[in-house]
């Protein structure tokens, strides 16, 4: 069970995995996530489902190597199995017919955005997608994004591909062109989602964000993933992971994400030593 059927390198240290998980695939909806473990000593790692195929009984996950646990996933190959895959978890993203929606993705945030924009397109919304990355090589899933959207704007911080600048710059240009935008969905690093919300707040555009708080069980049991939304404490795992971005306390989220930074660094260094240096530049 939980076998990796396919593995593909999308960008340096960014992997796409198609994993056998028939029960999860059968009931997955856009916005859901899974918890995976790679081995008996492993962490429970929350990963948003990037695609699902109930007939094949598989889910697609996109993983960027940032710490020991994600490096462990990076080491796995097609044919290997996860010890555990549990889900689908979290509330499905509320997707309604609103008119024009803009999906804004930063880095690998485009992966969890894909099932959402697909559904938006399917139910008749006009979908504009803005995908940003530091540089051209880090832009992933370009074809899939084009297929799932009516219009796509790629943006790179260094100008090596598409719009030169941040996703917020591209979004503001759209707004200033007078395009009617009924809803924005932003998925990516905390500061990118925060900047997007700061912008859309100015223009009163409802904005949904998908939060990636630190989790342990992912089922509401521990409360580690609590976030402040509109002054109230919510659990990202069972109340979210999608929230009204204009109400989220992003500074608190960023701070909480960094709580275990020292331990994460230690674990990564030990893992790198064991493997003889980091593998970021291989392949």
């Amino acid at each position, binding site marked *: 069970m939980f076998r990796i059927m396919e593995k593909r390198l999308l960008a340096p240290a960014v992997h796409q995995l198609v994993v056998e998980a028939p029960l999860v695939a059968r009931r997955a909806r856009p916005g859901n996530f899974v918890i995976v473990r790679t081995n008996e*000593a492993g962490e429970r790692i929350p990963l948003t489902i990037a695609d699902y195929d109930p007939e094949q009984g598989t889910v697609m996950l996109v993983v960027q190597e940032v710490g020991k646990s994600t490096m462990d996933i990076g080491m796995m190959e097609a044919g290997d199995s996860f010890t*555990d895959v549990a889900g689908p978890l979290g509330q499905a993203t509320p997707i309604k017919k609103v008119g024009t929606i803009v999906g804004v993705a930063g880095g690998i945030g485009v992966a969890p955005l894909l099932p959402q924009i697909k559904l938006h397109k399917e139910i008749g919304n006009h979908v504009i997608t803005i995908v940003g990355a530091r540089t051209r090589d880090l832009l992933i899933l370009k074809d899939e994004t084009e297929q799932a959207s009516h219009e796509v704007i790629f943006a790179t911080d260094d100008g090596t591909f598409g719009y030169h600048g941040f996703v917020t710059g591209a979004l503001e240009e759209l707004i200033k062109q007078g395009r009617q935008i009924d809803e924005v969905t932003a998925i990516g690093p905390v500061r990118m989602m925060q900047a997007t919300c700061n912008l859309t707040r100015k223009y009163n555009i409802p904005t949904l964000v998908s939060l990636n708080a630190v989790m342990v069980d992912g089922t509401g049991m521990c*409360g580690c993933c609590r976030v402040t939304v509109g002054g109230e404490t919510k659990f990202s795992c069972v109340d979210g992971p999608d929230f009204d971005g204009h109400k989220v306390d992003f500074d608190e989220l960023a701070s909480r994400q960094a709580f275990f930074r020292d*331990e994460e660094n230690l674990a990564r260094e030990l893992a790198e030593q064991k493997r003889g240096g980091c593998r970021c530049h291989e392949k």
Partner: protein
Amino acid sequence: MPKQTPEERRSNFCEVALGLDSELAMREAKRCIQCKTRPCTRGCPVEVEIPEFIALVAEGKFAEADAKIKEKNSLPAICGRVCPQESQCESLCTLGKKFKPVAVGALERFAADWARENQPETGCEQDISDDPPVCAAVDRIERPSARIAVIGSGPAGLTCAAELALMGYRVDIYESLHETGGVLRYGIPEFRLPKAIVNQEVDYVRSLGVRIFTNVLVGTTLDLNEMLAKGEYQAAFIGTGAGLPYFLEIPGENLNGVYSANEFLTRVNLMKAYRFPEYDTPVRIGKRVAVVGAGNVAMDAARTSLRLGAEDVKIVYRRSRTEMPARLEEIENAEEEGVQMFLLTNPVRIISDSKGGVGAMECIKMELGEPDASGRRRPVPVAGSEFTMDVDTVIVAVGQGPNPLLARATQGLALNRKGNIEVRDEYGATSIPGVWAGGDIVTGAATVISAMGAGKRAARGIDIWLRSQS
């Protein structure tokens, strides 16, 4: 019962209580006067035939004693350790009126441990195929054809499953986590309930033919109504526990270094963070820890903090010693290990250290006023008594509500005001025909043994109902 010394045990995770040897056990068992009234049995939620098993221990028939207990209780090594015997069987002991009551819990633990160490393993591997495993451990006549789904592998679910299996039903347990045992695994620490014991008891339940599927969340991975409608199962038992921690709802509670007791204990117990970086999940403990609350979970969190290296650990509780919900034994263990009690004290806010972490906690002194709805005297703040407590870690152990995942996905399942599952009779029948519930998901957070009692009653209810159907 012999214990590790406080100095020794506060730096290890090994079991604190060491158990009786056979000589001590026989001597203790012989104290039982085998009175005719058997009041102890009335105190046992799972109806263990206490005088009978004690008589067998007294005769040195330890395997028979274990078998006698297992007729009624599938998890004796666990109950012998974590049951509040002092308020159940032992509190009713005839001998206890004048002398110390017979140490029923210690004897139960002894018999179960003896059997584990001295009897060959049942060696029943789970068979993943559709047919339930055939197992030599139980003499089975003819199996009734009904299949029953048990949701949650904590004390309620394990007990219900074992009872039903013993009646001959085919039982599958679905567990949401990657490991079995529920609170026995993620909640109760190794030093109070070694995980090897939990494994053994779970293996025993498996040896009865029960299959256990981990990583399945009924409510999200599977739909309960669908499982029943498709005829995969003829009945179900919900024992999903109390799985949503309460917080204090005071300023500063989302600072780094504030944990729910559930998070803290889950990291340490289930994920083995005390062995980080050998295990990948970290836990960060400061030097000065405040644990808010005074139940068994609070004691577990405080004592775990010490073992992880905290220098100064305080229990902060808004009522007085008399109202502390923890077992006396656990309070004593904690105090012996150096946990300090700040009673009649209530946190007001948690103050940041300017780096997003906990710098201090402001508290206010309380006094007891008139009794409240719970019958306990209501704590009232003493005006002007605020003071600041120097802490860098806060663990909130003020109870838990029902986990919403199953309930919100299961159409037709009636809940009460608090979100607990509503039951209609003493067996735990819910609003959905063929579905029973029991344990913390019905009562709110309570004890292992009360959950086991509910699992047992539900098994009886299910059996009666299934017989009436055929």
